[in-house]
């Protein structure tokens, strides 16, 4: 049955049949008897990476297989979502080694995008914490790969956007914590220069990121708030928090029930930022101990916030530039603020070194922001792409819905090597997404 499927940006939307699997035998049978299929997790990538002619829904392939509480190792099927994993591990004093800004993604999606978190400069991306994983490749074989076995398949799968096959099982190591709380520090920066300096000054913190106000010009260009954090130690908690240091207070979720006109979300973020920036506290630096949820997943508190962008949807634009190219950041931010089309807020983060085949992160600055879909947006983003390329940067495939193929091939240094490994495992063009067709990675 054909359904309308779209990912988090609501753009693009396609008709696709959704095939749900709970057992390996059924899944293998489907893989070997069809072509042009793509695995889909929770659809939290923004663009078209998990959209295709036939989609394989992994959401019910969600069994947790083992949890070693002494050594902090979790083994699970690929469709389990991070929020379910957190519910299992946090009470036992363990945390995800790397987490993106939403917990509503699957483990398979975390691997296929090789996700990064606010701790990339310290802990790298998700792939660094995988012990081993199983993949059903194009000929229906299940191959177990790791940092030492079938390494070509392993590295083409981490960040490989589902093109080597369907990841079915993942075993990975967790991070030890002693409380479910984060000791957070917020520092105001009056412009871009300052925030970049602050990133360096605070780089010993495990977690860091900054919200940038894209509308400011002149001296306040790049006005921002740097937020850094560490897992809190038990003695740092308040008396109330100490009662159950590994348990979070229960919270109610708000939801955006339908598509709102797109100015609503912008108004909301503007208010939130100004509240943070000018709010009750005028101090330059603010400290507090907060539950891990608002620290890592501030947007998850509002389910379906993407509907705030309205029916036409939005695209998220995320790029990375090398450390020595921060002038590129200025150029791009200026272009965006001059145009006035971007979201009011952008997220800035510094990546540490990364040595992988096709994953997005590389040492440098990464910036992410939303653009509501409108006439003229795509040509404008093409212009930005050229600047990113010129400064030796690249775009995140997981957020991409529109990049031209030559941008991809010219910006990812291992593109050809990656494509060759994909060809080897993706027999008969079994795994094909809208994105892989657009980027000419598959036929």
């Amino acid at each position: 049955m054909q359904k309308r499927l779209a990912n988090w940006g609501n753009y693009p939307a396609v008709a696709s049949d959704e095939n749900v699997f709970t057992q390996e035998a059924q899944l293998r049978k489907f893989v070997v008897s069809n072509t042009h299929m793509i695995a889909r997790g929770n659809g939290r990538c923004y663009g078209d990476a998990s959209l295709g002619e036939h989609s394989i829904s992994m959401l019910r392939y969600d069994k947790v297989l083992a949890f070693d509480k002494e050594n902090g190792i979790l083994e699970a099927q690929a469709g389990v979502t991070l929020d379910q994993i957190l519910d299992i591990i946090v009470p036992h004093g363990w945390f995800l080694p790397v987490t993106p800004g939403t917990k509503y993604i699957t483990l398979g999606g975390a691997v296929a995008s090789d996700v990064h978190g606010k701790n990339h400069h310290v802990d790298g991306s998700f792939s660094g914490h995988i012990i081993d994983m199983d993949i059903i490749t194009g000929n229906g074989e299940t191959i177990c790969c790791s940092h030492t076995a079938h390494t070509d398949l392993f590295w083409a799968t981490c960040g490989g956007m589902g093109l080597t096959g369907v990841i079915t099982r993942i075993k990975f190591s967790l991070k030890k914590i002693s409380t479910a709380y984060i000791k957070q520090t917020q520092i105001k920066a009056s412009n871009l220069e300052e925030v970049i300096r602050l990133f360096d000054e605070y780089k010993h913190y495990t977690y860091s990121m900054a919200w940038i106000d894209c509308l400011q010009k002149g001296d306040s260009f790049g006005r921002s708030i740097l937020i850094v954090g560490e897992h809190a130690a038990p003695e740092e908690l308040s008396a109330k928090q100490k009662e159950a240091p590994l348990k979070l207070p229960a919270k109610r979720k708000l939801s955006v029930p339908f598509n709102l006109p797109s100015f609503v979300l912008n108004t909301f973020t503007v208010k939130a930022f100004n509240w943070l920036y000018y709010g009750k506290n005028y101090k330059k630096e603010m400290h507090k101990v907060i539950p891990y949820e608002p620290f890592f997943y501030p947007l998850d508190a509002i389910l379906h916030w993407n509907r705030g962008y309205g029916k036409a949807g939005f695209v998220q634009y995320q790029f990375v530039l090398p450390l020595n190219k921060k002038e590129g950041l200025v150029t791009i931010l200026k272009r965006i603020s001059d145009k006035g089309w971007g979201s009011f807020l952008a997220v800035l983060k510094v990546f540490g070194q990364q040595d992988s085949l096709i994953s997005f992160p590389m040492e440098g600055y990464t910036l992410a922001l939303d653009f509501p879909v409108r006439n003229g947006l795509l040509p404008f983003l093409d212009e930005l792409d050229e600047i990113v390329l010129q400064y030796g940067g690249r775009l995140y495939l997981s957020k991409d819905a529109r990049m031209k193929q030559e941008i991809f091939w010219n910006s990812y240094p291992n593109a050809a090597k990656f494509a060759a490994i994909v060809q080897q495992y993706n027999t008969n063009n079994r795994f094909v997404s809208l994105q892989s067709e657009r980027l000419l990675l598959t036929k």
Partner: protein
Amino acid sequence: MPTVLLLGAGSDMAVAIARKFAAEQYDIQLAGRNAAALQPLQQDLQVRYGVTATTHDFDATSFGSHPAFYNSLPVQPDVTICVFGYLGDQEKAQSNWEEAAAIINTNFTGAVSILNIVADSYAAKGQGTIIGISSVAGERGRQSNYIYGSAKAGFTAYLSGLRNRLFRSGVHVMSVQPGFVNTRMTQHLTLPPLLTAQPEAVATAVFKAAKKKKNILYVKWHWKYIMLIIKSIPEGVFKKLKL
């Protein structure tokens, strides 16, 4: 800890029910045609909820094996939930006896065969709960699925009789009448979202209703009234409808 036996444990609905009862600290016995395929679920229940889960080979249509199956369970379950079912292909079943028999034997005969055994055991002990997942399709025969519907109708009548018989022995029997549920069985159909339940919602409803010793449970509740209307259409009119 109390124990639940799930018959037909591999389906999406059964997984959701297993997780709900496990979350409430019931041990779980998973029975299905391929016990090995139930192992990931067994591990999942143990890791997530810290309960004991076991897997067992069980085929609803190999009637002769049912007594041995039930007697070999490691402990006698306190609650037995009959989840298995087979929608089949109506058009094929109209002229192909094998398909028709598979539908009838899975949804009706197989259920009677195993639940007779469970019922006797519970009656002798004077306690226990039997839950049968039937269907609103059994409330009136329609051209599009009357073989499945009539088998479910038989199952619904069986459960009602069983409830009547076991009431005095202190054994509770609950019939569950789901409308549309979003599962593998229905993944290729277009279902009206407002009338379609998620397996997790069915599981929660089943658990709550069982606690309250409800006799008949409709999920979602709208179905109770929809079926009242459908059942009230005079047969002379009904037979002309394309349903």
